[in-house]
């Protein structure tokens, strides 16, 4: 038994999962429980997400301490983990003051994540461009800007690196940050096997700079010290041109993500004005795709 338990409080946000804050014997806990629908076809079940969290925790990655997996919590699966203290709202983190060490700390956590043993997590899948194309085709709307992005990703693919365990959604909005810097990495449901540069560049996507567009690393810093620290720790020697490629891939993924989120509303799976409007706001991401392609010399 965990001792006296407080009344659970449902926290705001979380499109596809519920998050409940609860204190057990004075210890702050967070219960992550399945919501109505699924955000994305290729997300992990909560059971698998819990296993990834366990592996990351054992490897010394800064994550909330995993406590227990619950197969049936009033009809849905859930798991319990430590509730870390700190800021998790991306917009507020970017508004600052940004802890000076945050970029380097992000690189350090990524280096640890990319060293996780894939054999330990046999359920993780490989990501492919074809998978993105299939998701776009399922939406069924014509989006020439996204097609151009996909075309460039096929044409310009850098030499393939050995796939590693990637977080899959590594951006400032999924971190817990306090004055001293990075406290924890959250939201592991997109973990899969992929090129390590994919995770490194994912947070560059303009939509996740929360308005601080001049700071390419998630609105909080410059890329150079971050990349340098990562390369120093991993020896992977990731080059800036690879980051350009994966930044574009991140934008293409999110542009398609906006459309699939809107589909959840349109198909009646999860009616919400918040999901509906993403179908239109995806145009912002499409514009960014065009902007990045222009920078690559496409005309």
């Amino acid at each position, binding site marked *: 038994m965990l001792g006296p338990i407080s009344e659970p409080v449902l926290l705001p946000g979380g499109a596809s999962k519920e998050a409940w804050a609860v204190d057990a014997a004075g210890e702050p806990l967070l219960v992550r429980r399945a919501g109505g629908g699924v955000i994305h076809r290729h997300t992990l079940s909560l059971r698998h997400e819990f296993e990834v969290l366990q592996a990351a925790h054992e490897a010394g990655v800064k994550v909330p301490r995993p406590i227990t997996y619950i197969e049936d919590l009033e009809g849905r699966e859930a798991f319990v983990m430590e509730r870390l203290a700190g800021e998790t709202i991306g917009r507020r983190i970017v508004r600052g003051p940004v802890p000076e060490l945050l970029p380097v700390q992000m690189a350090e956590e990524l280096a640890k994540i990319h060293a996780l043993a894939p054999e330990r997590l046999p359920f993780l899948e490989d990501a492919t461009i074809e998978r993105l194309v299939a998701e776009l085709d399922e939406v069924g709307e014509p989006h020439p800007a996204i097609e151009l992005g996909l075309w460039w990703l096929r044409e310009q693919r850098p030499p393939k690196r050995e796939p590693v365990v990637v977080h899959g959604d590594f951006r400032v909005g999924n971190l817990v940050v306090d004055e001293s810097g990075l406290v924890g990495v959250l939201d592991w449901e997109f973990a899969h096997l992929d090129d390590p540069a994919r995770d490194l560049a994912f947070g560059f996507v303009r939509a996740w700079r929360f308005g601080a567009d001049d700071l390419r690393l998630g609105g909080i810093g410059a890329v150079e010290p971050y990349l340098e620290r990562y390369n120093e720790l991993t020896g992977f020697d990731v080059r800036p041109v690879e980051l350009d490629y994966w930044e574009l891939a991140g934008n293409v993924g999110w542009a398609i993500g906006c459309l699939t989120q809107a589909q959840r509303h*349109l198909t009646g799976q999860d009616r919400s004005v918040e999901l509906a409007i993403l179908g239109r706001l995806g145009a912002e991401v499409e514009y960014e795709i065009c902007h990045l392609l222009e920078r690559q010399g496409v005309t």
Partner: protein
Amino acid sequence: MSERPTPDELAEAIEEFLASEILPTLDDHRLRFRTLVALNALGIVRRELSKLTPVDDAEQRELAARIRAGDVPTGTLARVKAEVAERLLIASPHYLDRYEGE
């Protein structure tokens, strides 16, 4: 078909939000009344919208299919970018300001 959600689908989403998420939380008599009036007004908007001719997206479909097939002649990006900018003037008019000076 025009871009999704269509104007009517957006109005419908707002209607549902007001009716099922906002209205039940309102105790104030005056606010309840005005929310019901707002829902009536949205109903008028939706009936007006239903009379518009749907946008023909055949040209966009053809362009998307050509790019998918790898047929990307010079000028394709410029055309696509201008079309996205046009959509942004409706969906998020201030977004383009973020590119000033870049």
